């Protein structure tokens, strides 16, 4: 008699194993970043409505809830970046007859790149602020 039992994936499959929970935590880092993007876009919208509206939006940013969202979004972005870069050497394997780069070097290059890009952005922001203050 052939009557196989078909196992259906349960809706809570991702709660049932620590490996799946870690995966979902990593996927969930998109949520605070999504909210942060909405916040930035609302700022842009207020900017188009004139100075008073934009200043009011800036004032709103001082709310503890929005400060917490900024902290959460930063933590989520850092967690995502660190775990992502840790996986890069497994995927970006440079090993041919002509060129070979060690996994450690690939990882280091990505870490240095991330630090340089972020420091560059910060520097640009500071320079723009100074120029604005100078006017």
């Amino acid at each position, binding site marked *: 008699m052939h009557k*196989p*039992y*078909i*196992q259906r994936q349960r809706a809570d499959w991702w709660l049932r194993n620590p*490996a799946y929970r870690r*995966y979902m935590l990593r996927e969930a880092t998109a949520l605070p970043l999504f909210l942060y993007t909405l916040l930035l876009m609302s700022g842009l919208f207020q900017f188009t409505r004139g100075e008073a509206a934009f200043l009011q939006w800036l004032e709103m940013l001082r709310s503890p809830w929005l400060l917490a969202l900024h902290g959460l979004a930063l933590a989520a972005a850092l967690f995502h970046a660190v775990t992502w870069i840790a*996986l890069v050497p*497994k*995927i970006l394997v440079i*090993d041919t007859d002509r060129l070979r780069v060690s996994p450690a070097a690939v990882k280091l290059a990505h870490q240095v790149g991330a630090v340089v890009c972020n420091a560059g952005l910060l520097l640009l922001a500071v320079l723009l602020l100074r120029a604005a203050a100078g006017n």
Partner: protein
Amino acid sequence: MTETVTVRVQRYRPEEDTAPWEQSFEVPYSEDLSILDALNQIKDQQDPTLSHRWSCRMAICGSCGVMVNNEPKLSCKTFLRDYREQAAVTVRALDNFPIERDLVSDISGFIDHLETVQPWLIRSEEQPVSAGAYPQTPEQMQRYAAFSQCINCGLCYAACPQFGRDPAFLGPGALALAQRYNLDSRDEGAAQRMQWLNAGEGVWSCTFVGYCSEVCPKDVDPAAAINRGKVASDINYAVNLLNILRGKDDA
């Protein structure tokens, strides 16, 4: 009196049952007792109707994959002593596969996926046997060696939620095998296999959960293989796009 351990075993008898259920057995404990030994003890001494698969007892044949306390494991390579802290050990058939009977899964879907990716050396021109073997340096072999260690046990498929959601997904084992041949210096079939990597059921159905690599008993690292396949698929896409823009055939 001999110390015993409670082993809860999933039963499914297609003649009588509509769904799997759990049966408890007391198994005499010893330090070197594997889950497979425990299952054999149950079948030989307690209930001869229990069905489970096994053969080599040394993690080579890949037949004895089961879920042990919800983790995909080879029962021959998993020992009761590692579960001493827990009240009982639960043994189920592998997740994501149809259950044929008790602990026996139907893994034919996975075997079909293995065949799909053409896992053999493809040459544009076969040389005659008299010409001898295709030579390869140890460095060239090292590039795919880890991916060639697969024993087709199916643990990675039981670990993969994407395969659980959609059994059409070629899955970790088959895509790692495709990568094993694509990285082989003697092989010239990467272009033929690209259609399977690029397909909806190919590498892009993987969301890099990574649990397949954690459970692999032979350290094949299928998650790395699949995601290297994504890099190859990306390059293939870019080259095709460039060719189309230059008015050439994309193939």
